[in-house]
């Protein structure tokens, strides 16, 4: 056990699974980082943000495949490789690039098992980074997990910390269905204690990062950290919150969400994705349908506005949910009158 960053935790998960199972391969744009061309530099970067560094030198070019900039071809190739016996981990780099290969994911990988009567398995993992806060502008900052969550046949993982990332990625690699694994790009340097050994975290079981009596906060990915910070502040003001990290948006642990709402009677959902048809909308509907009688007041959602992610950092900060906005939403849900935060 030692402190590891989100980046190291993901790297270690890939490395340990590649050592354990020769069928596990890695492919994507720049995953070997710097190889190819005329530079002569092998594995200089290890992916654009250094996540796959060291894999090429340990496992070689047969198992760490640098691909051309053609998402349609290599995501399709990864789906086919999965269907025929390998366990590929394909990196889509920025999740925004899914526009170039959605058919391969949505109509092919996600449908194989169902349309071949359960006879086909597609043990495919697609890793991608998502999220705003990095000044990467509108085409490289989206939080598209609701898009994948909407597609039956996919499992969707949104890890909230280094410990979570390692266990959930190993689970994803060992899973026999296509898994979309989304890493918030602002979290790569976050650190916490992570076991050196391999371990798994099952899909569809939410994690409660804290338990409280007054209100339930559901948050995803990096928003879990902000929700915990807000809950710390609120605790000092006498408001005690439960914070739920669902870990996976598909499957979604609806039981835990409903149980916690039944206990606390109040709900705030923090979702970095665009507000129409996002997880906050989905969970609000769930709670309104199955736990309406438990609610002591309206559900509050902390979300960005329905606009592209702005590039200018002041606007990007304004766009994103923040600790202050969560704190204000919790107080509003508690029935306090608070000034609106722009």
């Amino acid at each position, binding site marked *: *056990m030692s402190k590891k960053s989100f980046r190291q935790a993901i790297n270690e998960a890939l490395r340990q699974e590649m050592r354990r199972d020769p069928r596990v391969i890695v492919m994507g744009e720049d995953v070997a980082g710097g190889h190819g061309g005329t530079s002569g530099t092998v594995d200089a970067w290890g992916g654009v943000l250094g996540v796959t560094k060291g894999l090429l030198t340990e496992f070689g070019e047969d198992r760490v495949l640098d691909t051309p900039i053609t998402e349609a071809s290599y995501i399709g190739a990864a789906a086919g490789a999965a269907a025929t016996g390998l366990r590929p981990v394909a990196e889509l780099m920025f999740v925004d690039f899914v526009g170039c290969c959605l058919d391969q994911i949505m109509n092919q990988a996600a449908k194989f098992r169902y349309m071949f009567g359960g006879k086909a398995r597609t043990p495919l993992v697609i890793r991608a980074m998502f999220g705003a806060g990095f000044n990467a502008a509108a085409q490289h900052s989206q939080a598209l997990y609701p898009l994948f969550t909407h597609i039956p046949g996919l499992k969707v993982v949104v890890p909230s910390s280094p410990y979570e990332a390692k*266990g959930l990625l190993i689970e994803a690699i060992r899973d026999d269905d296509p898994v979309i694994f989304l890493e918030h790009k602002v979290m790569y340097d976050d650190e916490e204690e992570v*076991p050196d*050994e*391999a*371990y*798994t*975290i*099952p899909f569809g*079981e939410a*994690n*409660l990062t804290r*338990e409280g009596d007054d209100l339930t906060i559901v948050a995803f990915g990096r928003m879990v950290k902000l929700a915990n910070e807000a809950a710390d502040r609120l*605790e000092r003001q006498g408001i005690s919150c439960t914070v739920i990290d669902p870990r996976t948006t598909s499957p979604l642990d609806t*039981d835990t969400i409903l149980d916690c709402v039944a206990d606390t009677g109040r709900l705030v959902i923090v979702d970095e994705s665009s507000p129409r048809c996002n997880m906050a909308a989905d969970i609000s509907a769930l709670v309104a349908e199955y736990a309406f009688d438990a609610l002591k007041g309206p559900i509050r959602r902390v979300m960005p506005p329905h606009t592209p992610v702005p590039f200018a950092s002041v606007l990007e900060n304004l766009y994103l949910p923040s600790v202050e906005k969560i704190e204000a939403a919790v107080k509003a849900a508690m029935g306090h009158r608070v000034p609106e935060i722009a």
Partner: protein
Amino acid sequence: MNASITPITMPKFGLAMTEGKLAGWMVRPGSRVKAGDDLADIETSKITNAYESPAAGILRQVASDGETLPVGALIGVLAEDDVSDADIDAFIARFAAEFATDEADGQEAAPAEPTVIDVKGRALRVLDLGHGDAPPILLIHGFGGDLTNWMFNHAALADGRRVVAFDLPGHGGSAKDVGDGSPAFFAGVAIDLLDHLGIGKAHLVAHSLGGAVALALAWQAPDRVASLALIAPAGLGPEINMDFINGFITADRQKTIQPVLGYLVHDKSLIGRKMADDILRYKRLDGAVSALMQIAATCFPDGRQADDLRPVLERGGIRALILWGEDDEILPVRQSGGLPPAVTIDILPGVGHMPQMERAADINRTIGTFVAQ
């Protein structure tokens, strides 16, 4: 400070505890209490435990139900009738000022952390506390446990004495190879650990399956054992609750593990989500579940305990104390019957399989006295 006013402060249950929540007073303000009476329930991130009064007097509460306070902060005071309210208020104000200064000075030493050491090629996680001339204590946990099972006992026993806790192979932060999974195998590892730490002879304080390990160690190497203090030990009878053993092995989620952990304690409300989370974290490590399966297959084939270690106690020569919760749902308390009269037996009413957690103060007192003899 006024000598007739006794401060009651947030206790430190276990090394990792930095703050606690006052889950509820059990005594009304103005009531008279004796030393040892339960004063309040203190909730940590892991478990809720009763806090016993350190002295006699009339209780004046300072903190309210539900408050979370750092370890050492004032939660109440005990005083006699003749102490005036003004004196008590002055005492509370002085205490608060001094506590704030201490905190700012950072006088609280960083808690000792367990370390992973290499013992004959095997990684063992060890927590080594205290020092003194008295023979050291080795703490041996049970099936599925780890060194944190001693969180309420380790520091208390380490007053003027070296006390070592470790994770058995296959458990906690130790390597997952468990050999044939027998008590004799674990006893061999414990002897290796004593050698490695330069401990010739130790008091063995052991719980559940750890009790069978301690008995096996005493059989293999009686000259290494100063005494045996066994809490609900395995090895003294055939019955064992296989619903617990099998449930513990197979459960992989909160919903399935919580009812299984309920077998461990008399008061089921002690089992919190955080405790279950810690166990799930351990169980999710590669190799942990297969280690547990190997141990269960060797120690409890066909749902019964395979090892009869009564001959160790019948042979005599080593002082032995046995503590058992009357309501133990894992190993029935009747297994403490029929032992040689030289063995001291202490049955605790209203306690389950984890007396060292459910009655920590009693257990610490009894074992402290026993090893000091």
